[in-house]
């Protein structure tokens, strides 16, 4: 039988995934598990989802041929312009899908976790759109670091609750959101922002994000006469933009997959987020995956200059891509990522999110050939990172 890199019926990707959850979450996860595919394949759901993606988010996003970059690197480089989505990144594809699902499940209260605030903003946005109460958990440290996004969420009518335990960052915000869900199991839906958490979340989020890869396929077919690029490349924190663009290519091994992680200040610096290198198999937020932890099994705090990549784990799909060798993993440090923020700005007139900049730095690490077709997921725009860019480059 042909190996599949997609989720199996038990919620696992190879050795990874599953639902390692306390009994208090069982009923909620079971409700989602038995409904998410059924509801999201209903005709009325598909129609509403695609209407909103088209008229509200601005899809399909362009597949842009980056001419100057291609010339310089002597290969064919395309950018999937998720940075042009409403709210500035791919995150909203998932929140639109999940809010529609929540409505169908009869939920009238939404909770979400956020690190840098991008997923929080995307969630607050769809809650405003639907007129549903929205509570965003955010680490106290991140609230201070990401003031403009906190203001955006508030302006959109969301309540931002600080996570004050632990390291007061993304993983703690996730813990708080899980606790809220445990305390409010009936009326509340938890919109997880990445392909992490217990099954069915990784698969559900990947499916909603798969619109990215599906568009690439049909766009590339028109432009190049072939729907298969030689490479798809995306940055991986939790991994939702990567899952979205890889999705239709997962089992098509003609297409090479490259995942770019944040090395932070360097793999050996003690301040890194390169989970594939530094992580070990374990359980985080209800999922068996690779995660950064102490020898004793305590989850450690990762570091990257980009807040969106400093999650101590990766999604189970990516853990399996890594272990099976289907995906090549490359880690890029802060310095190279920042340099590529500038490169892309000056060569293509696109200021990328720092997360996204990591992916482009691969161009200096791998020699591509003249005929290669390479698709980068340009997952987010850099507006939110201006302050970091200003500080770093003394602009």
């Amino acid at each position, binding site marked *: 039988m042909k190996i599949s890199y997609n989720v199996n019926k038990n919620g696992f990707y190879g050795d990874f995934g599953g639902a390692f959850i*306390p*009994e*208090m979450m069982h009923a909620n996860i079971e409700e989602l598990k038995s409904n998410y595919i059924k509801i999201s394949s209903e005709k009325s759901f598909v129609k509403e989802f695609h209407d909103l993606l088209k008229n509200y988010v601005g899809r399909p996003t362009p597949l842009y041929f980056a001419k100057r970059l291609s010339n310089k690197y002597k290969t064919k480089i395309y950018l999937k312009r998720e940075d042009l989505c409403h709210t500035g990144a791919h995150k909203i594809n998932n929140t639109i899908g999940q809010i529609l699902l929540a409505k169908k499940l009869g939920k009238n209260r939404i909770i979400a976790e956020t690190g840098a605030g991008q997923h929080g903003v995307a969630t607050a946005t769809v809650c405003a759109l639907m007129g549903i109460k929205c509570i965003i958990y955010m680490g106290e440290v991140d609230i201070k670091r990401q003031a403009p996004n906190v203001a955006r969420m508030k302006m959109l009518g969301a309540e931002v609750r600080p996570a004050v335990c632990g390291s007061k960052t993304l993983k703690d915000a996730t*813990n708080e959101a899980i606790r809220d869900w445990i305390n409010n199991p009936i009326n509340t839906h938890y919109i997880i922002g990445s392909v992490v958490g217990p099954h069915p979340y990784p698969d559900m989020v990947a499916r909603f994000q798969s619109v990215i890869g599906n568009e690439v396929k049909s766009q590339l077919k028109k432009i190049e006469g072939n729907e298969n690029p030689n490479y798809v490349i995306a940055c991986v924190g939790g991994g939702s933009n990567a899952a979205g663009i890889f999705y239709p290519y997962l089992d098509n091994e003609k297409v090479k997959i490259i995942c770019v992680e944040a090395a932070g200040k360097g793999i050996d610096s003690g301040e890194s987020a390169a989970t594939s290198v530094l992580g070990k198999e374990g359980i985080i937020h209800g999922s068996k995956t690779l995660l950064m932890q102490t020898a*004793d*099994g305590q989850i450690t705090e990762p570091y990257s200059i980009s807040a969106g990549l400093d999650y101590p784990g990766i999604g189970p799909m990516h853990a399996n891509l890594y272990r099976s060798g289907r995906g090549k993993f490359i880690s890029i440090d802060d310095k190279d990522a920042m340099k590529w923020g500038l490169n892309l700005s000056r060569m293509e007139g696109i200021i990328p999110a720092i997360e996204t900049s990591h992916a482009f730095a691969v161009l200096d690490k791998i020699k591509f050939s003249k005929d290669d077709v390479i698709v980068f997921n340009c997952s987010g725009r850099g507006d939110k990172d201006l302050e970091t860019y200003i500080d770093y480059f003394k602009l």
Partner: protein
Amino acid sequence: MNRINKVFENKKEILSIYFTAGFPNLSDTSSIIENLDKSGVDMIEIGLPFSDPIADGPTIQQSSSTALKNGMTTKKLFSQLKDLRKLTNIPIIIMGYFNPIMQYGVEPFCKDCESIGIDGLIVPDLPVDIYYNNYKKTFEKYNLLNMFLITPQTSIERVKFIDKISNGFIYMISSFSITGAVNSFQKEQKEYFERINKMNLKSPLLIGFGISNRETYKDAIKFSQGAIIGSAFIKHLEKKGVNKITDFIKKIRK
């Protein structure tokens, strides 16, 4: 016979106390156990601290963070418990999240538990089905009972399944909420306790989460074989220290 099974055979109105190992101080473990034993509790749950305890409330999370800062590890705890059975004869349970146990190795963990005289485990994020398919044999090989949780949301079929594979007691979560104190039980909670009681399960029931004082303890034992107190005890420890444990237990039981 396992000490847990024995205690349910011989006693009613069981009081089980949870504390986080390594809190308030790294080396308090033995003296907490000794004092609890002296004060007459029937069972002790030792919490193995974890950085991300999603099934616990703020009090236990805070105590876990402190314990980890104090330097508590699985190895350290096992070495502190080396002479456990010289200290006490009551049943001792370790409650820990699955990741630290996985990193230690499930089999070595169970083996070391047995050799120091641990009677059972509560692993809140190890779901029943995964336990049943992958780890039941290992737990049984080392004579460790595994206690499962049920909540008001747990379906009747699932409660029946949990009862069937349980070999100790069932941990009945008093409400939707994660651990932390409430003052008294609501009507809906009592209805849920009654609903479970009417099922005539083979496993004894202990009520946990939200038991904070004599009133809630008395309430809980109307519907079960006993109760578990965690957060309220941790708060008492934090305020009064390990030498005043008997005061706390006396107030609950009189």
